[in-house]
């Protein structure tokens, strides 16, 4: 039960961060990616702020043998950079640029711009399902 409450709080922080930072504004995301056009650098602060926290906190967290409420740390075991990783990242980047939505902001937009979310979210789920077929 403790772990479910932690997950709920973690999700709330994440959702609040996405809205506060305006990551949920796809026009702003596309402007951030428009490096060679009318570039809007402000979203670099989102990534910078988030990574600063995870870089510092991870050092301390991983000094523990186990997490506070769980028996071990669940991380990806693979370390090799293979064609699946590269292909996946290329496809994801193309999709991200096409709309300005990555998964988190895409989901939160169900409450902000449902006219777009009603297309993006089902397509995201179908895409994930197709990807799953290549992952089994």
């Amino acid at each position, binding site marked *: 039960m403790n772990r479910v409450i932690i997950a709920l709080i973690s999700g709330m922080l994440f959702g609040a961060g996405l809205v506060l930072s305006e990551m949920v504004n796809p026009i702003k995301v596309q402007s951030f990616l428009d490096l060679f056009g009318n570039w809007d650098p402000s979203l670099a602060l989102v990534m910078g*702020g988030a990574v600063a926290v995870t870089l510092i906190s991870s050092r301390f967290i991983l000094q523990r043998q186990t997490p506070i409420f769980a028996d071990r740390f669940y991380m990806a075991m693979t370390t090799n950079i293979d064609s699946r990783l590269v292909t996946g990242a290329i496809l*994801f980047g193309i999709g991200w640029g096409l709309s300005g939505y990555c998964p988190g902001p895409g989901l939160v937009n169900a409450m902000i711009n449902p006219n777009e979310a009603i297309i993006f979210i089902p397509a995201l789920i179908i895409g994930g399902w197709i990807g799953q077929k290549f992952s089994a």
Partner: protein
Amino acid sequence: MLENLPIEALYGGILIGLSAALLLAFNGRIAGISGILYNLLFNNLGDYDRNWRLAFLIGLLVGGYALLPVDFALREGYSGLLLALSGLAVGIGTRIGNGCTSGHGVCGIGLLAGRSIVATLIFMGAGIITVTLLRIMSI
């Protein structure tokens, strides 16, 4: 340009970082949205594995809802075809690449995972090229 950067973007980023740190420190889990979503939808999970993922996604919506309404103008009339292609590409790409902006970009880089650093550089590059092409083609 740089002095006009919105401080809210930094605060929002810090909240996202704290979210990831909390989930890792207490539950030992990576706050990767795409992985959490796909595991919930496509894998047979035990009660706990289902419940924490569901709680995270409910929290994501509740936390976002708490700060609504947004003060930016909503995009209108954007191509439905582009939205659909985008969703498909993001879905397939994040599934076979095992992560998105959160899992690779925020959590993975924080852990100095080589795979995540490479993935983030590639998807940022692909996103930049895609937006540049859209602008050149005036879409």
